[in-house]
């Protein structure tokens, strides 16, 4: 599923116009421990977290993640956004808590045959 569609369906706020939303999301991973994401997230996944520090972009680049959704209305730090633009890692925010946005996202991906 294209990130563009996920953004629209889940009403995510995209933090910069510079991001390419044409990427395909293959999977999802939710975690607030960066070391856990480094160890376990799969390539082309969308990552759901409450972390806002610039290191999330480094981790996303390292793991070749397709994008990051920051939950609970938290906003990425200015440095984080700058790095995200440089590295072209789309960063979105939602007012919803993690449980709700993950539930919606899971349903959306599953409707297209994603098996988890």
């Amino acid at each position, binding site marked *: 599923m294209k990130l563009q569609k996920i953004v629209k369906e889940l009403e995510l706020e995209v933090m910069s116009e510079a991001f390419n939303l044409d990427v395909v999301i293959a999977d999802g991973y939710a975690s607030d*421990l*960066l*070391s856990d994401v*480094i*160890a376990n997230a799969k390539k082309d996944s969308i990552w759901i977290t409450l*972390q*806002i*520090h610039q*290191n999330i972009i*480094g981790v996303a*680049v*390292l793991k070749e993640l397709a994008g990051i959704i920051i939950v609970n209305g938290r906003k990425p730090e200015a440095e984080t956004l700058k790095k995200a633009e440089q590295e072209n890692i789309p960063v979105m925010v939602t007012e919803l808590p993690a449980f709700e946005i993950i539930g919606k996202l899971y349903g959306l991906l599953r409707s297209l045959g994603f098996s988890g």
Partner: protein
Amino acid sequence: MLREFKADLHIHTSLSPCADEEMFPKRIIEQAKMNNLDIIGICDHNSAENVAATQKIGYKSNIAVIGGIEATSQEEVHILALFDDLEELFRFQEIVYDKLPGFNDEKVFGRQLIVNENDEVTGCNCRLLIGATSLSLQEIVETIHLLGGLSIASHIDRKSFSIIAQLGFIPEELFLDALELSPNCQNQMGSFSDMRINQELYGFPLVTFSDAHFLRDIGKSLTIFFIEEASIKEIRKALSGKDGRKVIT
């Protein structure tokens, strides 16, 4: 004789991937001198490989350099580990290295430059220093104490990598020696002395250091210790208010 020592014990060098590459020993000491600091602490992420070089330069300039590591626990909490003795510091480094998985990607996180006392690059650390160890917070604090060091929870007011942000509160059984407030804390939440009132909430002594990643930030935030000499032994006494030693700021 007891006197005031201005201390900034949380300074990164070019070894930390996130720090500026101008953070070399000579330049750090010059900056410390300019800001009239008496003691600085070198605390890179999960490594102490630029400590000895900085100590050599500091010695010549009459600035005491305390060696340390800013260790990352498995909960992704940053803890400053400071030691009087290089031998103990390097033993702590061994323990950290043993529990630190992964390799650094310079393009993603930045270079990890090891330098000598002439500010010449002598090598790179290839470990994932920005990463987390598999040591728990409890294990880190206990290990520091076993080796005779001082354990201070880093920048507890920050939203990232701080004990409050990661764990919500400080576990009762965790015997930290002090809590560090970042320079931001003073800007955002009033003066350091106002914050000290809050220390009763946690029951730990409070200190504030710069967490400098850039030369210009060295000494931006400091703590004045009323002690006899520049050592962890004396600072430990000041934190617990023993033998007339104290924290002044």
